[in-house]
């Protein structure tokens, strides 16, 4: 192969592809040809480091070329062409909404929105995935995923202080009967490893892990999804980076080693039996904590002009990015190393963790060194940013890379992807009830996608920094399942007199996506927004993150569902007035088993939403508070059991997914929010997985009260069945407990909307539901709680 590489410019396409496979670059044939032609024109053979640089910089992971590339979409006879799918859907909504409170969108490591009332602060938010690493080495993969997204926040603008971590996981079912291929890890092994990794890293960093979810489906058996997010506070005047020629390139934090070679390119490969865990980095949280402490002190003293994290692609990406406008001169012999047996090109692309690159004016170096030394944080000066727009990397007298910046960043060729959509067969027949309702409710409560997450949540220090005012576990017994976390970031702002905070919630619904990817996007945004309503957040100021995970984009069906979901994101963002501020995508989440069969994941879209909470003291929880208070249901219950957990447990033969009326939802949410602010609402909980019955059960046992409801008064579509009322999952619905003394005011605030009283809170510890006098179910809340409160781990 070395021989083949030595005559790179004379290779044909087939030979290039062979070389690519041997060297693990994951470049496409068109990209390899582009690179070959560049060096032909330059009249020389490339250095190994140059191809490695191109492979990193042009990788799916760094460039997102699938999502931001051209697509030809076909559905039946309809054809639609996109030149840049991402810009024409998700970014377009942000541009058209043009919100003044969006301070930085889609250009930095994270999106930034305004925070607080005095214009002094920005709130940065970002979510990432670390799926491939977690499939082969769950603990290390999860740790370094958390570490990576925290560095994104540390490296946004001139550095934000992390105040919240989020985590959303998808695993195969723990009781899966499917046979695993050789070398594949079982779902439980992955689950445990991932939770341990998130815990050990997040806890050591002193950042509360307080929002997220866990989803089990055998579609994720071989390809778990691990979404990790981070939010941080940044002074508004510290959002702009500026690299000046002459600035020193300073690497701080961890040393460089051979761990994590080819991480960026590895994430563009399908996982098979030959996949090795050496592409996964090794995390060390305390090194990153030192980096955090240094950056916060150095930022406030203005000791650097720009910074970014070393993530995928290591120095190559970080320095390449920071120096893209100026040029950079790097001397790799200055790097601090973990071991000596490392090749120069490996130093250049290694993804060793806990490293950040700073652009430091030479005059400020002594002051920075003082801080670095006082925090025992290692560093090295790798070179300087230049003005020649070239990237020149050497190791002593050996050249590693010598390329113009514009070829490195602009040279990637775009290839049109084919996308088709073939809708599945949908049945609208009346759903068949398969079990007594009471029994069905108990089965749903103990379902892995509904039951309590306490055994995971209590392993995370979700209250460090003392600002988690609405907690993931809440209520009288400290175990009720919250809808959204509300963070009061006083540890970052330094003020406990100011009560401004923010709420974070998620929407995720791959079950709906299997039926209709477009509706899945609408459902997911709606779920995230209604979770925010439930705690009393200002939803008119909602900002969103999109994180797509999909199988191979070479499959037109995969691309087809992606196109529909992206269109759904556009419509939802416009409808809810909620711009996307940052996003990420991860493809090639599929595995080949021992029989050569491919197992793609279902299209998975995680929507993360953040919105301000004007006064965290007034935020509310989901547990019932007092016997005698009226219970109201907001939002229309519709026909259809499609995508429901009930359907997974007892197939009703109905898989219809009802449409979503965004305008109606926004109107109802707005009225509820006014009622919450007026102090009329004591508890609110959204209707999601398991339907209304599960919502009522959770509110009851979390507060230690019973509830009695008659669903005949629920706002509903004509002809909706008892089964659909109890267990259907039609969107845009919220159950609220209204203060008895303020019921009149509540009715006035919600007048003319689909909001109706369905019953009341009762002292007797029983959940009773009826339909026009006919009893549907009557269950002891302690029994329901014991079904729900399972130890998942």
């Amino acid at each position, binding site marked *: 192969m070395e021989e083949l590489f030595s005559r790179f410019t004379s290779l044909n396409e087939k030979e290039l592809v062979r070389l690519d496979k041997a060297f693990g670059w994951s470049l496409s044939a068109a990209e390899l040809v582009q690179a070959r032609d560049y060096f032909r024109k330059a009249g020389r053979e490339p250095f190994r480091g140059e191809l490695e640089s191109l492979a990193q910089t042009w990788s799916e992971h760094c460039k997102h070329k699938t999502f931001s590339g051209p697509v030809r979409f076909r559905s039946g006879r309809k054809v639609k062409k996109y030149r840049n799918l991402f810009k024409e859907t998700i970014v377009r909504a942000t541009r058209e909404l043009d919100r003044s409170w969006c301070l930085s969108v889609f250009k930095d490591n994270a999106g930034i929105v305004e925070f607080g009332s005095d214009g002094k602060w920005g709130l940065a938010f970002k979510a990432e995935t670390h799926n491939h690493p977690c499939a082969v080495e769950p603990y290390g993969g999860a740790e370094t995923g958390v570490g990576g997204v925290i560095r994104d926040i540390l490296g946004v603008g001139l550095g934000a202080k992390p105040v919240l971590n989020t985590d959303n996981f998808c695993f195969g079912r723990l009781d899966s009967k499917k046979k695993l291929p050789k070398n594949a890890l079982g779902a439980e092994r992955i689950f445990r490893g991932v939770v341990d990794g998130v815990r050990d890293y997040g806890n050591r960093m002193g950042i509360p892990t307080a929002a997220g979810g866990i989803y089990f489906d055998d579609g994720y058996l071989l390809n778990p999804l691990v979404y990790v997010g981070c939010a941080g506070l940044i002074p508004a005047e510290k959002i702009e980076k500026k690299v000046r020629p002459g600035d020193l390139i300073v690497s701080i934090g961890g040393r460089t080693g051979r761990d994590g070679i080819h991480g960026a390119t590895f994430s563009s490969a399908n996982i098979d039996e030959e996949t090795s865990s050496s592409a996964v980095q090794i995390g060390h949280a*305390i090194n990153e904590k030192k980096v955090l402490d240094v950056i916060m002190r150095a930022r406030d003293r203005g000791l650097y002009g720009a910074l970014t994290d070393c993530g995928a692609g290591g120095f190559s990406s970080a320095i390449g990015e920071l120096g893209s406008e100026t040029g950079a001169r790097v001397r790799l012999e200055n790097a601090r190393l973990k071991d000596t047996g490392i090749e120069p090109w490996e130093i250049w692309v290694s993804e060793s963790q806990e490293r950040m690159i700073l652009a430091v004016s030479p005059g400020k170096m002594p002051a920075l060194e003082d801080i670095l030394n006082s*925090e025992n944080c290692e560093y090295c000066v790798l070179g300087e940013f230049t003005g020649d727009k070239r990237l020149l990397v050497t190791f002593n007298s050996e050249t590693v890379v010598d390329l113009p910046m514009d070829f490195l960043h602009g040279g990637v060729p775009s290839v049109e992807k084919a996308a088709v959509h073939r809708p599945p067969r949908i049945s609208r027949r009346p759903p068949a009830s398969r079990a007594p309702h009471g029994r069905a409710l108990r089965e749903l409560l103990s379902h892995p996608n509904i039951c309590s997450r306490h055994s995971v949540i209590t392993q995370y220090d979700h209250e460090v920094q003392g600002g988690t005012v609405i907690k993931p576990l809440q209520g009288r017994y400290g175990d009720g399942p919250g809808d959204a976390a509300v963070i009061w970031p006083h540890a970052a702002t330094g003020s406990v007199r100011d009560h401004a905070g923010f709420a974070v919630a998620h929407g995720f619904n791959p079950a709906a996506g299997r039926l209709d990817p477009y509706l899945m996007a609408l459902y997911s945004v709606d779920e995230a927004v209604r979770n925010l309503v439930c705690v009393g957040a200002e939803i008119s100021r909602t900002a969103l993150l999109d994180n797509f995970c999909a199988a191979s984009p070479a499959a037109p069906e995969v691309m087809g569902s992606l196109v529909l979901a992206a269109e759904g994101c556009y419509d939802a963002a416009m409808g809810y007035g909620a711009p996307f501020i940052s996003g990420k995508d991860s493809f090639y989440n599929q595995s080949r088993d021992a029989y050569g069969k491919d197992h793609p994941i279902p299209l998975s879209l995680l929507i993360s939403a953040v919105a301000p909470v004007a006064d965290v003291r007034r935020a509310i929880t989901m547990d019932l508070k007092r016997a005698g208070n009226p219970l109201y249901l907001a939002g229309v219950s519709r026909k259809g059991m499609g995508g429901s957990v009930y359907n997974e447990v007892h197939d009703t033969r109905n898989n219809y997914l009802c449409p979503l009326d965004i305008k109606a939802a926004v109107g109802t949410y707005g009225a509820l929010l006014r009622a919450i602010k007026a102090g009329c609402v004591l508890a609110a909980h959204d209707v999601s997985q398991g339907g209304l019955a599960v919502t009522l059960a959770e509110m009851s046992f979390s507060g230690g009260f019973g509830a009695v409801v008659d669903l005949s008064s629920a706002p509903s579509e004509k002809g909706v069945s008892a089964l659909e009322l109890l267990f259907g999952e039609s969107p845009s619905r919220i159950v609220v407990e209204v203060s008895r003394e303020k019921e009149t005011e509540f009715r006035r605030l919600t007048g003319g909307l689909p909001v109706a009283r369905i019953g009341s809170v009762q002292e007797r510890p029983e959940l009773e539901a009826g339909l026009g006098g006919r009893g549907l179910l009557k269950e002891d809340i302690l029994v329901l709680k014991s079904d729900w409160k399972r130890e998942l781990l």
Partner: protein
Amino acid sequence: MKRPKAIILRGTGTNCDIETMTSFRYVGADAGLVHINELLAGKKKVMDYDIMAFPGGFSYGDDISAGRIFAVKMAKLAGDFARFIKGGRPVIGICNGFQILARTGFLPENGRGAQLSTLYANDGGRFLARWVRLRVNKRSPCIFTRGLPDEIELPIAHGEGKFIMKDRKALEGLLKADLHALTYVENPNGSMRDIAGITNPAGTCFGLMPHPERCFFPFQRPDRPASREAAAAGREFFRNAVEYVR
């Protein structure tokens, strides 16, 4: 009125330092963060302060075991710390801070710097973050828990919080002197005699596993009580220290 100076001592991996500082400031102390390197380098002096706090976190990653490396670093300054405590200036160690006070032999106090107790891995075998009910020992000389009701709630967040003492007689002595200022109502980690926090006989040096700085305001509680303005249990610990110095 005197504004007592509080030193919030941190090292690599300390992570509850800011909220601990904020808590002391709120009740009237002039509190500041000091890295142990600054003490070791002689840039700051322990005896310039009136109150000392060892906040929670994972000092030096809790490598080897919780609080171990921080304790080793402190050994060089053991004389200063001993003088500070002997002088009756309040010292509080929270979570990792308690682990450090136990490692350095300041708690239980024995005058020899001998480690008599360990905060060992929880019985459940894993890190545990949740709210717990605590009994306040009204007979304890502890100045930090003065005036608290018989029972309070605070959050815990630790993997190594099981209080154990090898010397049964010493443990009995500790109980007899009412040095166990706080005990768990439902023991979450297997601590001997449900111990959650202990003090020295003077009542001025206090270590506890729960986090009072996270229950400073009532709206930080999981049950969101209606009264939003009242103080929460955690605040009293800090107020007591400041009033004691005044």
